[in-house]
């Protein structure tokens, strides 16, 4: 797997290492040759710049930490290295060889292994089958016959070496999430990759398991493996990291040796320097629009909070903290196990369901606009009236004229000017979001839930959506805003709830809001 550099390459590598040392001056001379170097990487997704001139290095025998808020571009950068997506511009070097990584198989050939944040295991297959998937061991005398005994033995050995006792013959779906995460790590570890990328490997591990994982990382370091470590848990980073790169909105904003930085510095660079507090007058009315009491569900527990009419309340936290699940459960689109919901002072009886929520005047603008917010094959006008058909046409017979008129009215209300006959897939993200908003204004919603309303939307449209949210609050509508962007939260919200690991861990009033405070309480 490891290509041995020939003599010439070795010499030029040595020279290169001198040069590098002169430039950065952070690390000592003997191991300063970067094994992975990504130079001036650019990446855009449908017109939105995700990575801009990012240069990133990883060194053998060191843990390179990659830090950044949600959407800062960490995952995109790592997806480029592991062959999941391609970059628009930029060069990647392994050792001193320029490489072109087009697929996961290419990445494996270059000695790169990635532990994905989302588990990527086959639930119906056994542990050893997952570990060796794509690299099966074959019987010596029967080369087409997989040697399951040997794979099972080797898997057991790898898992034991890592310090975990998991039966390699067990089917993965019978394992706990923590055990599955360990299998995911084992899948990358046995390959003895030169570069090992770990994306949030500890998100579901206990403290003892984390300690064992760190033991393993230190051992891998001794063997000369370069580790790229992504995590939001700052304490962890100081325990295991050697160097750190912080991304902010697709750009590198800090590159340091781990010893040289402080926690405060990291929090500050993650939240961005240009974030400023905007003056905002709260239009909150005394009546409550929503009150949630002790809600429990798939990824949240004991959540209680309230939103007043005319108030903008932000729900913030890291990805996976359970925010989306919580608001979806309130709307009825996700499972709610227990708890009480009061809408405009009245208790909601029975399980929440989308149709009941619409009748109860809740509007929900989902994060996955294209999958859940709009019907892409249906024109804008039809999308706008979609949720309000029962009220518009109580006799169940549609009238094209009334549909168009209604759609035009609400399109005008959200200042959508593209024509209601267009298909949503042809629209920009900002215009799509306007259509979704028009849909909920059409149903006369008095409580609007925005889940990441400006995800994938450019700056100009973003400002427009902010203004609309503020106007809606001014008209007395309750707004519940799920957002990962501290700037957005600062600009819009009257009050903030911070979620962590499924619980609401903090409530901040507007007077005590700063970006640093939000980021610090999320971590």
């Amino acid at each position: 797997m490891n290509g041995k550099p020939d003599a010439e390459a070795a010499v030029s590598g040595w020279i290169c290492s001198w040069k590098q040392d002169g430039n950065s001056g952070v690390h000592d001379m003997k191991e300063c040759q970067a094994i992975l170097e990504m130079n001036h990487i650019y990446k855009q997704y449908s017109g939105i710049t995700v990575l801009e001139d990012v240069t990133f290095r990883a060194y053998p025998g060191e843990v390179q930490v990659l830090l950044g808020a949600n959407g800062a571009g960490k995952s995109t950068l790592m997806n480029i290295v592991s062959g999941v997506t391609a970059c628009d511009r930029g060069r990647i070097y392994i050792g001193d060889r320029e490489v072109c990584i087009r697929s996961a198989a290419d990445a494996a050939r270059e000695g790169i292994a990635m532990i994905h944040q989302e588990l990527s295991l086959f639930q119906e297959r056994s542990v050893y089958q997952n570990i060796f998937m794509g690299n099966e061991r074959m019987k010596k005398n029967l080369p087409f016959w997989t040697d399951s005994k040997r794979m099972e033995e080797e898997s057991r050995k790898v898992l034991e070496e890592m310090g975990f006792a998991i039966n390699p013959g067990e089917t993965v779906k019978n394992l706990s999430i923590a055990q599955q995460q360990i299998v995911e790590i084992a899948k990358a570890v046995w390959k003895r990759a030169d570069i090992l990328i770990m994306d949030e490997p500890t998100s579901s591990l206990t403290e003892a398991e984390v300690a064992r994982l760190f033991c393993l990382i230190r051992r891998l370091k001794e063997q000369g493996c370069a580790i790229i470590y992504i995590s939001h848990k700052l304490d962890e980073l100081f325990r295991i990291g050697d160097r750190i790169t912080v991304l902010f909105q697709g750009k590198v904003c800090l590159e340091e040796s781990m010893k040289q930085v402080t926690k405060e510095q990291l929090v500050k660079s993650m939240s961005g320097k240009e974030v400023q507090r905007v003056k905002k007058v709260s239009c909150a009315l005394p009546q409550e629009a929503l009150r949630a009491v002790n809600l429990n569900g798939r990824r949240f527990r004991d959540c209680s909070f309230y939103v007043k009419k005319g108030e903008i309340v932000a729900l913030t936290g890291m990805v996976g903290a359970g925010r989306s699940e919580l608001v979806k459960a309130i709307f009825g689109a996700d499972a709610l196990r227990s708890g009480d919901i009061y809408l405009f002072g009245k208790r909601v009886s029975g399980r929440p369901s989308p149709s009941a929520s619409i009748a109860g005047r809740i509007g929900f603008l989902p994060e996955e606009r294209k999958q859940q917010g709009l019907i892409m094959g249906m024109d804008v006008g039809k999308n706008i009236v979609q949720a309000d058909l029962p009220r518009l046409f109580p006799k169940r017979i549609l009238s094209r004229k009334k549909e168009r008129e209604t759609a035009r009215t609400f399109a005008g209300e959200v200042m959508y000017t593209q024509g209601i006959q267009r298909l949503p897939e042809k629209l920009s993200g900002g215009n799509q979001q306007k259509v979704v908003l028009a849909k909920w204004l059409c149903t006369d919603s008095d409580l609007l839930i925005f889940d990441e309303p400006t995800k994938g939307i450019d700056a100009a449209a973003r400002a427009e959506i902010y203004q609309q949210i503020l106007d809606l609050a001014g008209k007395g509508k309750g707004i519940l805003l799920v957002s990962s962007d501290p700037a957005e939260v600062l600009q819009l919200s009257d009050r903030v709830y911070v979620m962590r690991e499924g619980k609401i861990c903090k409530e901040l009033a507007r007077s005590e809001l700063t970006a640093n405070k939000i980021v610090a309480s999320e971590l």
Partner: protein
Amino acid sequence: MEKKRVKYKTDFGMKNTSALTGTIMVFLLFSILSDDFLTVYNISNVLKNCAVLLIASMGTTMAILLGSNDISVGSVMSLGGIITAMLIKGGADPALAAAAGLAAGLGAGLINGILIVYFQANFWVATFAMYSIAQGIALILSDGNGIAGFPGGFRFLGTGKVFGVYFIILLAAALLALMYVLLNKTRFGGYIYAIGESERIAGITGIPTGKVKLLVFTLSGLCAGTAGILLAAKTNVAMPSGGAGYEFDAIAAVIIGGTSLDGGKGSVLGTAVGVFLITVIRNGLTVMGLSSVFHYLVIGLIIMAVIVVDVLQIQLRENRKESDARECK
């Protein structure tokens, strides 16, 4: 706090044994209801009838495990049979004629695969087109007429005996064993299950998903070609629509055998049980004097029963899991 449930694997990868239980029950029922059912003659007849469907449904099993389906099986069978029969009638060597029939099946499957992998066609659409194309070619070649009467060497495939057992039964058993090994012991088989469970994960794991899919559809076509030739040899006639309806029986056998239509779950042995159950029911109903018009209804009802039993089992398991989780707390 680890509770380990020790479970020995005796089910050869068949996740539910309800199909097997059902088959045994149906078998016993017919044995009691009819004197003519449980005779050596009738049982070897049942097995003989199983053989053709079993070979056809092996390809379907692979396609369904992959998370796709292949509905061109029946027409491709007809095409393979017709081509072989015409070449034999034209004076070609039976072995060569059979090879041509196999090649036709392989080619049809390959085209399915190319459409699905390289042209990103939906598998329903691609195999539906092939269903019509293969049927059309078979009709044009034969001018709509059946071709009957084959030399003894060719007929041996369908009616000959080796050590007192029909050759066709032995052949089907051997192919079943081969398919079991292919699916459970080779890299390729593992990849079929993996892609069936999640093509996305298979992609990031570095599995060559395109190649695997291409090969699966090609093999499915080959299986159909083989089945078509055997059908002609067994009945001594190749009809231009002789394979019609086999795709339905094949899919039915796979479902009854417990293979999930979502892909990634199931076993070819389950399919074998499903094939046996369908054939036993057809045979039993005929032996009891019920006309073939009832067969489809009964098979449909059984598929429904399988679905209901499956759903009930899943619910039971989930309830148990939840109560387990509550105990843990």
